[in-house]
């Protein structure tokens, strides 16, 4: 039987886990594309022209958002675990998401 899980800290946990998986899947692709600079700069350039496409810009925004959310979520966890003050958890979780949206939004605005 499934537990009704939609409380805020559980959502933070799921977001953290899913963003981690997505980033871990993205990384090998990212590393491979960059390594083209060594032997195949032309192919790298042709990949980079893809970054002009709107779909790609949205995807980039998504990636930056996932990275920021994963990092801020992780810092929230570190603060809760290692700092002596008891944090108002939900507020921090919300602040982490908001901060991530802000940073990825900035990225997006620069990209478009």
């Amino acid at each position, binding site marked *: 039987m499934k537990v009704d899980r939609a409380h805020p800290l559980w959502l933070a946990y799921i977001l953290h886990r899913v963003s981690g998986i997505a980033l871990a899947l993205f990384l090998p692709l990212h590393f491979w594309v*960059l390594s083209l*600079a060594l032997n195949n700069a032309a192919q790298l*350039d042709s990949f980079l022209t893809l970054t002009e496409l709107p779909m790609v810009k949205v995807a980039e925004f998504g990636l930056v958002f996932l990275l920021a959310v994963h990092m801020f979520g992780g810092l929230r966890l570190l603060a809760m675990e290692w700092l002596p003050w008891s944090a108002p958890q939900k507020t921090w979780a919300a602040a982490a998401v908001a901060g991530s949206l802000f940073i990825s939004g900035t990225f997006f605005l620069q990209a478009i």
Partner: protein
Amino acid sequence: MLDFRLYMAQRLSALIMAPFVIVHIGVMIYAIQGGLTAAEILGRTQGSIFWFLFYGMFVVAVSIHAAIGLRTILFEWGGLKGTALNVTAWGIGAILFAMGANAVWAVTA
């Protein structure tokens, strides 16, 4: 699954990466302005000891962090355990490190 040493490695690699991530996102926001080309990237990173060390340490930290993170997920959600789990986790770390090191070399050599 996460005994104390894995937990510390995970948390410490995360702390190390926090400033790297912030700088990386900042550089990306700057770099994508006016479009992105291989020449522009390489112009910034090629021959740079700083970027070599920066991204080199970033790759080491992320290989450890992602491998431990995926290990936990493979165990809790994938049911993988024992030797199979450890071999897979080490494998993931090794692949990420190899590909990452190759990428760092590609843009800074």
